[in-house]
């Protein structure tokens, strides 16, 4: 058993729902107990969709367990087909139904429905949401994609955009941003999938020259299969950040056999100038901890260091299958990657790193609140506020603008930071309160160490701005412990500062 206060991913059938809900003309019949329909809310409330997800649940109860739950499934599948008339159907079990082993795939096949019925095997006690989405998309592509057709003479190069789903972090706007970029390069988008695609669209995937994989966690498996069996190359670069977007343009141009120079010359992001402008000087060396899915965490680490001048003091992801890439990316910064799906382990890593800014998920916002550290969200899981009405891509050049605004916002503005360093006893602008442009104050981080502090030193510590105070306390205590100093005095504090100054 794993003690989970928060979980980064849902169970794998949620991943399957994200694929089904993203698509049109596909229905999902899910063998699940009463109550698992909570998942509908993810789509109708968190993502604010105006239609019910195309999912029929058997919602069995305890009294059904003594009877024929298989018959419940058959009835639900038959009724769903008759009512919704989908082009194709996926069938599967949730975690509880997996335990009762009714074999939805076999039962659905036996119904002899006149449409493709694709069974899903999603091991709920081993795998998680993104794996479930990847597996579902792969099964659909494998089951429905027709062999590639030869490209007609003179046709513009074309690609598929693979990976965006329902309930994806900014998938809606990323697709628009990247499709726009591809359009300006003269590359046609054949099919975008799963978001907005029908089963008939999946059948025409083979007509594209190559695939653009926006979210490898979801489309990686399907893209690898398409590369193997249809010979379609897939992009590797994730266009998050200015530099990555430029590399993406070059990669796509090479696959399409066109010249990237015009687009590279014509387009850039306002974020580049914002970051170079003198107002951003104080961002240099800000200590940042990055955590999220592998795609967003790796991209954020690069943007934070290369494009904003932050210092990376922590990098991690719950996408265990990308452990190697994460460790590689962490190495140049002299840190160990935190590859875990345990919220408590992430919290401990953040506490140890004492960052000034956390770039993470909705879960890191809990930790950030507890520790009083500014935080911005870069990756799922996210809540309703991160499915905004306004255009908010993470990808492409406009995405870079969004990242600049979003990440800098929680930090204390430069002038306020300076004045706090000079005058610490203002009754309104207090060092231990939040940036004044954000309103309410955070909670003071709990004192972690065991060393005794002399009253005078403790007072002095209190004068250090709150966003670096935790680090100063830890450094001083470690310094004292290493030298066998029992009581930390004013001198110890400043000795440590001189010794360990960043």
């Amino acid at each position: 058993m794993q003690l989970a206060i928060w979980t980064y991913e849902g169970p794998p059938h949620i991943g399957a729902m994200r694929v089904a809900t993203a698509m049109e003309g596909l229905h999902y019949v899910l063998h699940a107990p009463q109550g698992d329909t909570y998942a509908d809310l993810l789509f109708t409330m968190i993502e604010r969709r105006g239609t019910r997800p195309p999912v029929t649940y058997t919602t069995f109860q305890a009294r059904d367990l003594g009877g024929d739950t298989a018959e419940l499934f058959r009835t639900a599948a038959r009724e769903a087909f008759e009512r919704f008339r989908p082009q194709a159907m996926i069938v599967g079990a949730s975690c509880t139904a997996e335990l009762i082993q009714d074999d939805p795939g076999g039962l659905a096949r036996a119904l002899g429905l006149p449409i493709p019925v694709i069974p899903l095997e999603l091991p709920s006690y081993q795998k998680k949401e993104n794996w479930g989405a990847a597996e579902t998309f792969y099964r659909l592509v494998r089951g429905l994609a027709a062999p590639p057709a030869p490209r007609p003479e003179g046709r513009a190069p074309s690609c598929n955009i693979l990976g965006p789903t329902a309930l994806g972090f900014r998938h809606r706007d990323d697709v628009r941003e990247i499709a726009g970029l591809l359009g300006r390069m003269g590359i046609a988008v054949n099919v975008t999938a799963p978001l907005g695609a029908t089963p008939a669209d999946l059948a025409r995937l083979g007509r594209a020259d190559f695939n653009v994989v926006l979210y490898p966690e979801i489309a990686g498996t399907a893209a690898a299969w398409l590369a193997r069996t249809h010979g379609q190359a897939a992009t590797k670069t994730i266009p998050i950040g200015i530099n990555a977007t430029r590399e993406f343009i070059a990669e796509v141009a090479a696959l399409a056999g066109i010249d990237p120079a015009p687009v590279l010359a014509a387009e850039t992001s306002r974020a580049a100038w914002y970051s170079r402008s003198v107002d951003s000087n104080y961002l240099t060396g800000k200590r940042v901890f990055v955590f999220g899915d592998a795609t967003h965490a790796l991209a954020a680490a690069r943007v934070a260091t290369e494009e904003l001048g932050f210092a990376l003091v922590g990098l991690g992801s719950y996408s265990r299958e990308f452990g190697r890439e994460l460790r590689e990316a962490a190495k140049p910064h002299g840190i160990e990657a935190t590859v875990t799906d345990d919220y408590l382990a992430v919290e401990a890593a953040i506490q140890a790193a004492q960052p000034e800014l956390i770039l993470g998920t909705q879960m890191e916002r809990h930790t950030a609140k507890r520790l009083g550290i500014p935080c911005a969200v870069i990756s799922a899981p996210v809540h309703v506020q991160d499915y905004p009405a306004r255009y908010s891509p993470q990808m492409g050049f406009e995405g870079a603008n969004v990242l600049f605004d979003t990440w800098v916002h929680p930090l204390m503005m430069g002038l306020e930071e300076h004045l706090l360093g000079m005058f610490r006893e203002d009754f309104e602008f207090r060092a231990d309160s939040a940036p004044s442009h954000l309103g309410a104050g955070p909670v003071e981080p709990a004192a972690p160490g065991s060393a005794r502090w002399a009253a005078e030193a403790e007072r002095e510590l209190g004068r250090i701005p709150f966003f670096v105070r935790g680090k100063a306390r830890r450094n001083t205590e470690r310094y004292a412990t290493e030298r066998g100093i029992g009581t930390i005095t004013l001198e110890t504090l400043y000795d440590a500062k001189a010794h360990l100054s960043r």
Partner: protein
Amino acid sequence: MSGAALAQASPVPGCAEAPVLRERGQREVFCGLTGIIWLHRKIQDAFFLIVGSRTCAHLMQSAAGVMIFAEPRFATAIIEERDLAGLADANEELDRVVNQLLARRPDIRLLFLVGSCPSEVIKLDLSRAASRLNATHAPGVRVLNYSGSGIETTFTQGEDACLAALVPEMRADPAPGLLVVGALAEVVEDQMRRLFAALGIGPVAFLPPRRAAELPGIGPGVRFLLAQPFLAETARLLEARGARRLAAPFPLGAEGTTAWLRAAAEAWGVPATRFREVTAIGEQRARTAIARHRGPLAGRRIFFFPDSQLEIPLARFLSRELGMRPVEIGTPYLHRQHLAEELALLPADAVLSEGQHVDRQLDRCRAARPDLVVCGLGLANPLEAEGFATKWSIELVFTPIQGYDQAGDLAELFARPLHRRATLMV
């Protein structure tokens, strides 16, 4: 009208004998685990540890995760593949997780092991686990268990199961007293306390208490009032310990609150004049507050999808005090005995339905074209997109709605979506 109207209404059959439409099919409802979302706030030193799957953990954070917690008071022990291999191992694993949790949260006094569908299906014996853990962690922490699984409980029944687990913990106390059962907002609880004190009814205790140590006593002297309609099992266990239920409608609206208070007043032999003196001001205040919303709501047709078992008392309040016309009143379970007083007050032409086949119910709803649909969040936005005004039902469980001084707020919850539709010009 209040008392008089109630007396007149009682002999009228209302819906007491009406046939109930019983359906089976997809049920679009929450499981009992969701009760934790309000119970963990109510009992402040309790912790709720769900023993379940990633789905259970995901449900909880999807429902509660929009609040940013410095330190949440619920968590999930997620069953993994290796736990499914053998039960003995699962028990050791559970002990380890509980130790880990209690080390992190030394302030916890009451720990609920909450059963889920997976833990019920593999028959993990959580009551044995609870007594084993009690032996280890006594006297600092008391460990109890209940099931909030979807296969056994629907939404608010999770609270019933939780309170039922507390009943055997209540010390035997033969002294007479009034027990109010059902988690109420603190403000409502305090109002009720003041009213009972003014009526000379007491001592009054509440279940659940705000802190684990404040669990009231129980015995043959105790009369209890259900503040919520979904407490069948809790009531049964309280009666098994000698307490007696005071039959009453539920304290929603001016009429419901007066009738609810009267049930206690009659049991305590409070003179009618005294009762009127104490309740008149509150009841009048409630009627004034309700009257503001009567205009927009009177004559409007309302359709209830099943959710919390509050549907019947709400339909009674909306029809009698606001003039609304219930088309269909869906409820996940209909406890005829606890709802007898409510059913008698419902308009005779309302269709009652128990259980659900959600697609067929949606067909009926679309055909009836009600002015307002009370439903869960899985249906609300899709119905809004189809042009229906909806009131999402979960809010009724999270908002102070009981008692005189919340009657206006309760009416407003139903008036607001209609008002909003009239206001918006986009």
